[in-house]
């Protein structure tokens, strides 16, 4: 299987399409960074307009940590498309090209082949996320410097102490990895049902878009199903940036407000990943290759 994984990674990274995602990420993050470098003050003033009526906020809000938070917030909505582009193509693309049948006449077990493909898609996803971390976090830190992290949540404001941030990003990125792996496994799973990659890519994105809309809309009938939508759990990375306070409303450094929420969401996502992955393997073992 190791050979097969190597081969799959080799194939992924010899395709121009793969680098398109990295270029897209670089461009997106670059644009955000440039925009905030030039007009960051206006942006923060705009975001805080309501808050600034009552309070004056002193300090370097527009620092690397803050930029990375904005980038994650914006990007994690769009990265699924880039992931789907590769993951949803893993099987369907080969079926379309006609290479799947040659691949499967090679003396490798189908389980090994599909597992290698699944892992290759996962590795691509993780590399994409690492790239986001490098550009979004480290480059932002280099450009904008570091300071406390000021976050406006929907009903309160959180200021995370500078020394208390980095591990939260580590956690958030790990969680984002789970969220993106869920997207990757969904795309991978759907790639079984078509012989061209457009269908599964569009299907993956459609599911994510529809679920995200259902997750964000505050309509009672949707609220019932919200906990069952994996998209509701994909944004739980934000919980890393909320801490507990003691009775005197003092921040407890190194704490997380709702650790149970993170664990629950992580479990939901892991179940999805294993579910999609397992179903893919089962299906693939039985699949008649007619392409």
């Amino acid at each position: 299987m190791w050979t097969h994984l190597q081969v799959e990674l080799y194939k992924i990274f010899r395709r121009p399409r793969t680098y398109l995602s990295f270029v897209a990420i670089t461009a997106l993050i670059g644009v955000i960074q440039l925009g905030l470098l030039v007009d960051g003050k206006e942006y923060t003033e705009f975001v805080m307009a309501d808050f600034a009526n009552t309070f004056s906020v002193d300090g370097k809000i527009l620092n690397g940590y803050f930029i990375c938070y904005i980038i994650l917030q914006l990007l994690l909505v769009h990265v699924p498309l880039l992931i789907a582009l590769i993951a949803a193509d893993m099987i369907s693309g080969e079926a379309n090209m006609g290479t799947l049948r040659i691949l499967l006449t090679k003396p490798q077990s189908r389980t090994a082949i599909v597992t290698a493909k699944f892992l290759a898609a996962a590795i691509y996803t993780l590399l994409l996320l690492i790239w986001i971390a490098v550009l979004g976090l480290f480059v932002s830190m280099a450009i904008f410097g570091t300071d406390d992290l000021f976050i406006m949540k929907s009903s309160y404001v959180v200021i995370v102490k500078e020394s208390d941030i980095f591990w939260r990003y580590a956690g958030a990125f790990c969680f984002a990895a789970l969220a993106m792996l869920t997207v990757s496994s969904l795309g991978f799973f759907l790639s079984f049902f078509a012989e061209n990659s457009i269908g599964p890519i569009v299907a993956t994105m459609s599911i994510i878009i529809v679920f995200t809309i259902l997750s964000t809309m505050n309509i009672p009938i949707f609220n019932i199903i919200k906990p069952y939508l994996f998209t509701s759990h994909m944004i739980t990375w934000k919980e890393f940036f909320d801490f507990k306070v003691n009775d005197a409303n003092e921040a407890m450094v190194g704490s997380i407000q709702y650790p149970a929420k993170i664990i629950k969401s992580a479990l939901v996502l892991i179940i999805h990943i294993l579910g999609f992955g397992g179903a893919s393997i089962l299906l693939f073992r039985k699949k008649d290759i007619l392409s």
Partner: protein
Amino acid sequence: MQSIIKVTALTKQFNNLTAVNDLSFSVQDGDVYGFLGQNGAGKSTTIRMLLTLITPTSGTIEIFGYPLSTHRRDILQQVGAVIEKPDVYKYLSAYDNLKLFAKLSGMKPTHQLLMDQLEMVGLANRAKDTVKTFSQGMKQRLGIAIALVHDPQLIMLDEPTNGLDPQGIADIRNLILRLSCERKKTVIVSSHLLYEIEQIASRMLIIDKGKKLVEGAATELFDTSQTILQLMTADNHTAIEKINQTAWAKQLLPVRDGNIIISLNRDDIPSFNRMLVEKDISVFSFQPRHSLEDFFLQVTAGKQYVDTFTS
């Protein structure tokens, strides 16, 4: 002689369609085994079952004496295949494609081995070019190089000449003969074109609608004394009327493609020709047919299969 492949009561159903129906045959060591049938006859489905791409609904397949269902990996180690179009990774070079599939076949290929393989199929000078710049024939040859790179004992070629020009077809034919004669490989070639198979196959199987029609040595199946002729005349209707007045009438077959078809003993051709002149039938062309249908007419003339192929 040892059976390399033994297929027993193989059946594959897709929903309501029975693609392969109770098919049994065996391939001997060293055979060039022709697998004949019209498009949709079930050839590809059968070959795909032999390669584990499709799971049979029922029946058994033994290859090299082992059940395919339980010894898949060991068997595939000794099998090379080109299935229909020779599709490879278009964004990779011929060399990279070959290397990649060699690795997946469990090899650690050397540069020399890969280049030799490309040399064999005449692609050594294009080794580093990406496949998207290749012609259909070059892709087909690369596909064959991939099928052969791990030096398999058994080679399955499903419609290997599809989309090739005459030179490409001749190249493939020569390659198959070389593999069989020089390297002692067992080759299964499927095709819907009779003349391809008849030139290379030592044994053949003919199937239709998933069922076996005939199986046997090519020399046994061909009745060389009988020929199917096609006639194009100025007025087919009148010509048929005139032929019907003669003793040749019972040898007439249904008109196809606007041509009069007649089955004749080779020795009778000159006298038939004389009759045409005597009856003042203007003949534009007068030639033997080599299509699969005609072959069936020939080997099964008057038997139940005729209907199948002429309807």
